[in-house]
């Protein structure tokens, strides 16, 4: 298939359609409106349905209904909208329903701003909604990667019966890049649990999360925990960039990782042996990748568009045995490659 030039948001929409998703429910919010707009144009052409809901609260519950009926469904929103999704995300996880949520992050808290941000890492990876649950979370750093991760996310959602999220930011959503859509047929998954109507052939299916008996609820919680442990064991993804000979490691994801790549080139030219570990899955956090560098790295420089969220997982995954330094911009401010390189050099100078 040939390369096409597409905006991130539209490429995500097309990737979903190519992954067999024909149903989209959502509510407008900046900076991701190009996704619902694209879907409202494309889905009727492929025999699907685009439905604009009255609120994010309704949208995520339409997703629940569609996912519970055993069909691939997707929604997209941005930070304040994801806060409104949180109730539904907890119920989706509790009922074991697969679906895909796109979060094109903007600055918070509150109404915040509409510029790119990474300040919803905690919300995406540690909950947001109530209860012991996890989303499977992917962080693309290019439009092509966003396209590839959409079909991966749908597959893992179906495989594990769990909601999945693509955690992007306004830059990934808005920028145009050439992309190639993979020509693979969507995989089929057993959905005999879905509410399709009994057809007189089988006992009733109930999609629910209420377990009033605490023994049963505890059992279900441990079952979910085992599922999340399996995901941690088998689904970690990360990119190791120029780390073979590195004395120093930058840890960054998404747009920030793109910027750090440029910083690393500058720093390498100046003789610094620095590379980058870029988490692609945020849950599961790629701690196995970090573990490889224990004893080899002098320090980790964690860079985020937040006041410091992923840094907690970086520290945990290295058991706090490697010093971890931080640089963050937030509120929609994006760090420059030079700024990151300067901060890095200051840290190295302090070391000596």
């Amino acid at each position: 298939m040939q390369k096409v030039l597409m905006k991130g948001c539209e490429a995500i929409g097309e990737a979903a359609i190519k992954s067999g998703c024909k149903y989209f429910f959502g509510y407008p919010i900046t900076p991701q409106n190009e996704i619902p707009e694209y879907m409202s144009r494309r889905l009727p052409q492929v025999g699907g349905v685009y439905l604009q809901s009255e609120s994010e609260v309704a949208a995520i519950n339409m997703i629940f209904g569609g996912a519970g009926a055993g069909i691939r469904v997707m929604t997209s929103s941005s930070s304040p909208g994801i806060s409104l999704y949180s109730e539904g995300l907890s119920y989706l996880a509790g009922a074991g329903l697969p679906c895909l949520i796109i979060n094109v992050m903007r600055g918070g808290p509150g109404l915040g701003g509409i510029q790119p941000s990474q300040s919803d890492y905690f919300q995406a990876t540690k909950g947001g909604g109530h209860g012991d649950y996890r989303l499977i979370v992917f962080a693309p750093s290019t439009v092509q990667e966003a396209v590839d991760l959409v079909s991966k996310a749908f597959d893992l959602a179906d495989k594990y019966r769990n909601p999945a999220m693509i955690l992007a930011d306004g830059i990934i959503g808005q920028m145009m890049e050439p992309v190639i859509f993979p020509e693979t047929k969507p995989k089929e998954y057993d959905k005999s649990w879905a509410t399709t109507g009994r057809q007189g052939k089988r006992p009733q299916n109930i999609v629910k999360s209420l377990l009033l008996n605490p023994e049963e609820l505890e059992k279900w919680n441990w079952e979910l925990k085992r599922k999340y442990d399996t995901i941690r064991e088998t689904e970690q993804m990360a990119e190791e960039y120029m780390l073979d000979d590195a004395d120093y490691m930058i840890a960054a994801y998404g747009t920030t990782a793109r910027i750090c790549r440029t910083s690393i080139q500058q720093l390498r030219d100046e003789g610094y042996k620095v590379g980058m570990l870029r988490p692609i899955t945020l849950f599961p956090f790629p701690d196995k990748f970090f573990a490889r560098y224990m004893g080899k790295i002098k320090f980790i420089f964690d860079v985020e568009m937040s006041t410091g969220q992923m840094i907690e997982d970086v520290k945990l995954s290295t058991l706090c045995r490697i010093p971890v330094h931080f640089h963050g911009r937030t509120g929609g401010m994006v760090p420059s490659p030079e700024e990151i390189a300067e901060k890095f050099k200051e840290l190295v100078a302090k070391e000596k």
Partner: protein
Amino acid sequence: MENIENMKVVFQKTESLYERSTHYCPGCTHGIAHRLVAEAIDELGVAGRAVGIAPVGCSVLMYNYLNVDFQEAPHGRAPALATGVKRVRPDTIVFTYQGDGDLASIGTAEIIHAANRGEKITVIFINNAIYGMTGGQMAPTTLIGQKTSTTPYGRDAELIGYPIRMAELLSTLKAPSYIVRESLHKPANIIKAKKAIKKAFENQVKGMPFSFVELLSTCPTNWGMTPIQALDWLEKNMIPYFPLGEFKNIDGGN
């Protein structure tokens, strides 16, 4: 003993109702409403295509009593779930069953917009003027002066406004095909309620938009009454404020 050959069945439990005792309090009308829904589904022959959406409230466990597929919604969101199911599987017969706290308070946005989009679903709305499961707090449909655990001096319109009439409110919308209020306090009314519920499902089978049946119901436990007192209280207090009848019927009626 009469010859069994000469006997015929004149009444039996409808097929989609499980042979189970319910968790509902003595005198609660949920049991009647469940039976009417199950009968309507069976008479129309759509049990195999039916998907129910259970609310949060006393009837959250409805799926234990009706043998059809079910989803359990977060509080108030049943119409959004129903929308999701019906849009991805248009051949299913989707219904929500919601109480007054669920539908007329926390889920007001969802019900109004599902109705306004003309979703091809059936909504059964149980109005008993109180929160049942949480222990008798004020509902949006609680009558003026009615005492509940959170209106210990009686509902005061000055403080909290007036009881909301959902059937009337929804009937101002263009899309719905059928909006009706019936009551479950007397056999004659139960027969009318049955007819209304059946029509509300029949409309969906025919592909018609949004049908809504409000059922005035009793809650003897939280009203602090005997079942018989409760039926009497419903008739004397609820019906004058919540008049019975059709508010919208696009194929006949007013």
